[in-house]
């Protein structure tokens, strides 16, 4: 029987490292013992994810029925009672979009890039539907579409940076990149709004947001990423509570 040289305990043939101290166990000829092939435990599966999916499906099914009922009720109200058709159409479009958003929220699309793309697509459809209720497109092409495309691009960029970054400390990474994202988005948003309103771009409030948030992000990343260990230690020493 193999032994762990560090713990002195006997272990099974199949185990490659000691279960107690993870010290590698020297190889022993497995054919010498009939017990060598016997499994004491099954290759364990994790029941949690299977059960979670089951519960998620049940919840999504219940929500789908609720949304379907809500649409039916709204259509009935719209056809029987004298209510504004505009309000009914707005409600139906919003309720149907909510179903798609919930579908995304439940994580049925595995790839995060595809989820962002789907999020953008649903929002485009929603805004198009809302703007097109009176059969006239007023703000969809000028405001909604560029803002949504912009938001999707920024989300793509942040996700790309997160996947590529060596900075895996979420307490530094998430706030820092959130600052970068918001600052970029606010600058681009003001550009769009300004251009549509005045046909000219003159940044004002977004510039302040951009400078403040970018500074915070750069300080955070700089402190964590680029600061020499000696300096980090000095800051810790001086500021420790």
């Amino acid at each position: 029987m193999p032994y762990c040289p560090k713990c002195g305990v006997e272990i099974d043939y199949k185990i490659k490292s000691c279960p107690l101290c993870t010290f590698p166990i020297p190889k022993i000829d497995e054919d010498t013992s009939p017990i060598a092939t016997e499994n004491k435990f099954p290759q364990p599966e994790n029941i949690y994810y299977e059960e979670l999916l089951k519960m998620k499906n049940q919840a999504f099914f219940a929500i789908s029925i609720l949304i379907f009922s809500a649409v039916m009720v709204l259509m009935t109200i719209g056809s029987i009672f004298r209510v504004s058709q505009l309000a009914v159409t707005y409600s139906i479009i919003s309720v149907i979009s909510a179903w798609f958003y919930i579908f995304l929220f439940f994580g049925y699309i595995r790839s995060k890039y595809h989820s962002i793309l789907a999020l953008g697509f649903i929002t485009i459809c929603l805004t198009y539907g809302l703007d097109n209720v009176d059969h006239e497109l007023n703000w969809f092409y000028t405001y909604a579409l560029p803002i949504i495309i912009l938001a999707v691009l920024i989300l793509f960029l942040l996700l790309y940076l997160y996947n590529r970054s060596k900075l895996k400390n979420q307490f530094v990474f998430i706030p820092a990149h959130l600052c970068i994202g918001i600052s970029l988005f606010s600058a681009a948003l003001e550009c769009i709004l300004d251009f549509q309103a005045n046909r000219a771009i003159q940044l004002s409030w977004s510039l302040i947001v951009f400078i403040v948030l970018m500074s915070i992000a750069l300080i955070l990343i700089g402190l964590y990423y680029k600061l020499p260990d000696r300096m980090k230690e000095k800051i810790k020493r001086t500021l420790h509570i």
Partner: protein
Amino acid sequence: MRQHSKNWYKLDNAGKLYPSITSTRVSTVFRVSATLYDEVNPTLLQIALNNIIERFPYYKVNLKRGLFWYYFEYTRNYPVVEKETFYPCMFMHYKRKKSFPFRVLYFNKKISIEISHSITDGTGVVIFLKSLLVEYFRLIDNKLCLEKDPGIFFSHDPIDQEEAEDAFQKYYQKNIPDPPKLNKAFHLPFKLNSKGEYHIITGIIPTEPLLAAAKKHQVSLTQFLLALYFDTIQDFIHSNHIKLRHPVVMNVPVNLRNLYPSKTMRNFFISITPQIDFRLGTYSFDEILDYIKCYMKMAITRKNISQYIHKNVKNEKSLFVRLTPLFIKNLLMPALYSKYAERNFTSSISNLGQITMPKSIENKIERFEFYPPPSRGNIIKIGVGSYKDKIYISFGSLTKATEIEKIFFRKIRKMNIPVKIETNRE
């Protein structure tokens, strides 16, 4: 199908808590398993289960929701044996329709019963498993001659009404004071596993040298292992330079059938809580042993235990608690359980004692093991069971860290006692 005067029964005092606190991490499910020398025949195991479950009508039940409490309803369905595929002691959906509060599993040579604490304790399930094994071996060899054993029920034995009693209610004394309250205990600072994972490390140790070591110190095996566990935690605290803010408190369930003449097959245990405050200084192993010996002697008496029974039953009998709707109980119980129970323990050690089988089938079974229920509050727990000449000490752990197990088993090895380790870790 046996006829029952009523087709449901109330959960016992201890069991009432468990359905409300069950979650993906706190499954409240524990396992007792028997490893045979031959491969398990699932068809025969199913027949044996169908036969023997009739002898245990109080387990042939489904959990149902009342307005104020859960209750068990007798069912005509039969539990189905399953092949073991998941981690042990995982949560079971016994609140769902037609689900049993236990499952019978097989894997290669092993037969396991995983059961919710809402229905019974370790003693109950050991008798159930032993009876199932006897029925299984009788199906394999119908000429098997078996002597009468109080710890085994045969399928044709008459059912004693006392087996289904709530012994807590029976031995409840009204006008006695509550036991002293517990404070927050030290908790092991390990990172939790992913949900759905439960790691077991079992140490297989020959009973004789371990018993000799315990006898040398004039303590029982449970007391000796408990002292060893305290010492392990002390070593862990010192080697990791942990600044203690609370004492180390152990949860040790005591089988009350040894103190009260009850035949109940439902829950009948009380947890006693030996505690050592390592802030006072380093304790030698002998000092720990002395403390445990004295503590156990004082704690395991009917007078002391009756205080705990009084406290638990008094809470259950409170009109306010009884009139609180079940859905509110379900919302509040997990937080209350954490505050008044789990938070006050560092870990737990539960010993089922020596398990025996009739001579004719003793040599058909290699071992019995006991895995404690996983719990978020006490991420490492110990379950102990002995069979023939070996003792099986199983650490159930919700963390990848193995520091505690390593120190514990190395201590036993230092006493020159051989230890064999088995695990479900990859």
